[in-house]
């Protein structure tokens, strides 16, 4: 859990990150709950969809009163999953129509964040 280079212990669960997150409604764990699980050393955090649904919009990081870069924590959870060969997007499952419609900017960013 050291990848993020952040002092996660200083999080005091104010919930500002979850309040600002545009996608918190469909997350298994809210960003502040993810932070809490990491503080407790609970590795089940890697089973949540939170960090796959995170679109790195950085609202959480911008508004954290303790200055924690939460988006970076999400990135490190993604990296941990990707490095153990768990990916979110399977290239073979994308339909021909989607591949024709989507611009490069969408495909490259998705592959960068969600495939290994």
């Amino acid at each position, binding site marked *: 859990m050291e990848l993020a280079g952040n002092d996660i212990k200083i999080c005091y669960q104010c919930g500002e990150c979850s309040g600002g997150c545009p996608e918190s409604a469909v997350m298994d764990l809210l960003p502040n709950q993810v932070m809490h699980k990491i503080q407790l050393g609970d590795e089940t955090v890697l089973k949540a969809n939170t960090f796959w649904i995170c679109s790195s919009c950085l609202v959480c990081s911008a508004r954290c009163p303790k200055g924690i870069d939460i988006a970076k924590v999400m990135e490190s959870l993604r990296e941990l999953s990707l490095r153990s060969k768990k990916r979110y997007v399977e290239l073979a499952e994308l339909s021909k129509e989607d591949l024709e419609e*989507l611009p490069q900017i969408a495909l490259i960013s*998705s592959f960068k*964040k969600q495939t290994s």
Partner: protein
Amino acid sequence: MYLTEKIAYYPGCTAKSYAKYMDSTSRDVMKEFGIDLVELTRWTCCGTFYGLADDNLYSQLAPIRNMIRTREDGFTDLVTTCSMCYNTLKRANLLFKTDEEKAERLNAFMYEEKNYEEDVNVWHLLEIIRDKVDIEKITRKVVNPLKGLKVAPYYGCTLVRPEEISIDSNPEKPTILTDLIFALGAEPVEDPYMTECCGSYLTVKDKHLVADRTNKIIGSMTRRGAEIIMVSCPLCQFNLDRRQKQARELNPSLPEIPVVYFTQLMALALGMDYDKLGFKEHHVDPTIVLKKRKLLGTPEKVPIKVKK
């Protein structure tokens, strides 16, 4: 008459295909202000997103290579119109300038090229318009004022976050697009969703989530009376424009609203031929509302007051 200034220009991958009219209108508009955007002779994809993992430098290599290409072409300023390219290039550049150890490791990867000397500045085209062109000068060049057109500015994430690279001093409530809308003679319609994420890359696997956000963002903007949305990022444009189809499946009463690049509206206001602005490629056709507001016409036909 302005002196012609040359600035190195980084188009980005999508500017060559999906967003080709963002690219062409950027060049045309800047020419009007005496700035020649010179495309780098060699450039690579910026990687689209700045890599956040500390122990992984591979995603910083491509942006830094582009900085070296800029120097190879003899420039020290690099400008791009795509918000995501701007964010990635600028953050990688900032990392290089602030972290000596990482800079050294990155330079160790440059086998074919010279080391990067931290001497390139990255700009977004909007910053050039504000700082080099001056928004007041735009008003003077406008021959087809977008009178009565209600334009909602949409910044998205990558122009304003994180704060260190934000193009506006207030990342929570930026005003640069609003200033530009005023300068073009249109009416800005500011909205709390203007700095909310469009869903970005989730559009590949989780279309329904992006459709939901498009529904929220567009719903809020149209309720405030917006007739057209102005963006600077091809992915925001795709998500807000193309995903309206899926958004309408969630909410059949969602009104249609066109989404255009700021450079397209600038070109229109500067009197360029609207047939060359690429409006036909959009999912929601902007010409309907522009016709309604009587803003379409060839430069000769537009009833214009030429200011000299």
